[in-house]
């Protein structure tokens, strides 16, 4: 499965769609072909059985000593063999192949079902119809009938099935591609205004006073990063494998330290960060988690409050714990992280954190004791 995923990730989207359409249409065509052949087979068998049943009726009517020459003519004309036996399964009369069969084989034939096709040594396959101790049989012709049907099926029916299956698979492919196309359109819709703003800010930067320059520069750098975040978020929500190519091994410790360095000095930070914890993930998603958790911890902190942050290595990867006092924070602040049903508006940021954690199967634990909020995010155990 891993190998297949690895292989699929190297195929282009067009290739994947071709593969998808090809596989689905081939599967449908093959299945339809098998079903069709089976249908022909069973209908032919039924036809043979009905024909033999009618002939058996006629043979029964002719199976009288005074009509023996008529019976012989009938059997010859219809290419039938005849076998009549008594209550003790002893031979009364036999015609056609039955003449050449030994007594043991004949005995076994007396136990045949009403309609049966049976392989008779040296003679091939025969369709047999047995009723009232009279058995007639004719050479099995189903293969000849099937050969004809097969030709017709391949020439007429299969192209129709193939055409329909292509239409069906294109429809399925459209459903498959829909989230990818939507993600692309959303990406385009979001990035175009971002580009407008970024380029305008860059043109303005030379005309503004020095103290504003730095602020504008920070803003456009943040906007530039936002462009990357858009892709990562869309990738996560569209579960689109073509968007997952940003995954790389990143140094989680270093990324967290970068965020902590940017925190204003007005708040006390107590950070214990184990060095060089690496993890394979889209860097932008980790940035979104860190930024939202830290900015919310600052925003909803008490006056002269603190933030305790601990990042440690665990067997499955890493575990991040954060703790901060929350004076007047709503009781349900972090509920959106843990509870799907509660959709209180605490900004998009925390919902994104929740969704990222869910999509990556991270464990989230939240607790609130005496207005001290603690969050723990850990990589999944099976990683």
């Amino acid at each position, binding site marked *: 499965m891993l190998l297949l995923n690895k292989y699929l990730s190297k195929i*282009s*989207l067009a290739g994947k769609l071709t593969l998808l359409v090809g596989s689905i249409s081939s599967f449908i065509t093959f299945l339809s072909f098998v079903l069709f052949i089976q249908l022909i087979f069973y209908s032919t068998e039924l036809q043979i059985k009905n024909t033999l049943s009618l002939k058996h009726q006629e043979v029964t009517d002719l199976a009288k000593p005074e009509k023996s020459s008529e019976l012989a003519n009938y059997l010859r004309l219809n290419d039938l063999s005849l076998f009549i036996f008594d209550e003790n399964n002893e031979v009364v009369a036999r015609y056609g192949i039955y003449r050449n069969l030994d007594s043991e084989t004949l005995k076994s034939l007396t136990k045949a079902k009403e309609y049966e096709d049976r392989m008779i040594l040296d003679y091939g396959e025969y369709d047999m119809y047995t009723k009232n101790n009279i058995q007639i049989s004719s050479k099995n012709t189903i293969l000849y009938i099937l050969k004809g049907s097969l030709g017709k099926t391949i020439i007429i029916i299969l192209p129709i099935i193939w055409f329909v299956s292509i239409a069906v698979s294109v429809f399925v492919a459209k459903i498959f591609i829909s989230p990818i196309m939507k993600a*692309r359109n959303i*990406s*385009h819709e979001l*990035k*175009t205004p*971002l*580009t*407008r*703003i*970024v*380029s*305008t800010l*860059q*043109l303005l930067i030379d005309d503004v006073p020095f103290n504003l320059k730095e602020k504008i520069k920070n803003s*456009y750098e943040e*906007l*530039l990063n*936002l*462009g*990357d975040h858009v*892709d990562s978020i869309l990738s996560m929500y569209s579960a689109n494998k*073509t*968007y997952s*190519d*940003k995954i790389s091994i990143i140094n989680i410790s270093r990324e967290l330290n970068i965020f902590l360095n940017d925190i204003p000095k007005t708040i006390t930070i107590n950070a214990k960060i184990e060095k060089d914890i690496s993890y394979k993930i889209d860097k932008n998603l980790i940035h979104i988690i860190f930024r939202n958790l830290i900015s919310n911890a600052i925003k909803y902190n008490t006056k002269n409050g603190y933030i305790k942050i601990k990042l440690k290595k665990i067997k499955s990867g890493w575990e991040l714990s954060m703790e901060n006092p929350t004076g007047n924070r709503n009781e349900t602040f972090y509920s959106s992280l843990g509870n799907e049903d509660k959709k209180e508006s605490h900004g998009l940021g925390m919902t994104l954190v929740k969704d990222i954690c869910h999509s990556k199967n991270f464990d989230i634990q939240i607790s609130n004791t005496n207005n001290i909020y603690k969050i723990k995010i850990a990589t999944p155990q099976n990683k």
Partner: protein
Amino acid sequence: MRILLVEDDEIISENIKAFLSSKGLSIDQAFDKKSGIDKCFSEDYDLLIIDRGLPDGEGLDIVSEARKESINCPILVLTARNQDQDIIEGFDHGADDYLSKPFDLHVLLARVKSLIRRGVNPTIKAVFKVNDITINTNLSQVIRNGNEVKLSPREYAIFEYLALHPNKVIDRTTLLTHAWDENVDLFSNTVDVHINYLRKKLGNVIKTIRGKGYVITQ
């Protein structure tokens, strides 16, 4: 250097034009695929900058059309899609580089300059010397004897073009084509006027070849 910019968003297009023009590049604009293809076939550009999402189709079609018609100038693709697959598609169509939106205009300038340099002469670096004059193409800066010589964007464009083609006589029409945008008056003496300005600032580094054009010899 003359660039064709095919970008449907007017604000982005105007911002790019304003920024690149201030760095001595001449920008012609097209706002859709059709006019992009028309301009690309009718003018001689040093670089094409093409946005992928155009109102009348995929920008990469312009790249394919240009390559089919043997237009070999470098092509930079702008895209709101920056996944590997989208980038590969761009290269497969014949693009030389890509830039994902939103982008830093300085990064765009650096890519543009690098592509133009590579298009002209792959061995030339971003900062190179012609005689005693150093040219920093990334900063559009000209330094002589350790002092920066202030050139107007147009003067810089003419000087950079001549410097990128040393020992090659460049006629007036070629200079007009590569250092001015589509609004140039082909019958004016603007080239001679600008060459005179350059000589006043840089000395007699640009030589006139009578009846043929101008050359920087090394």
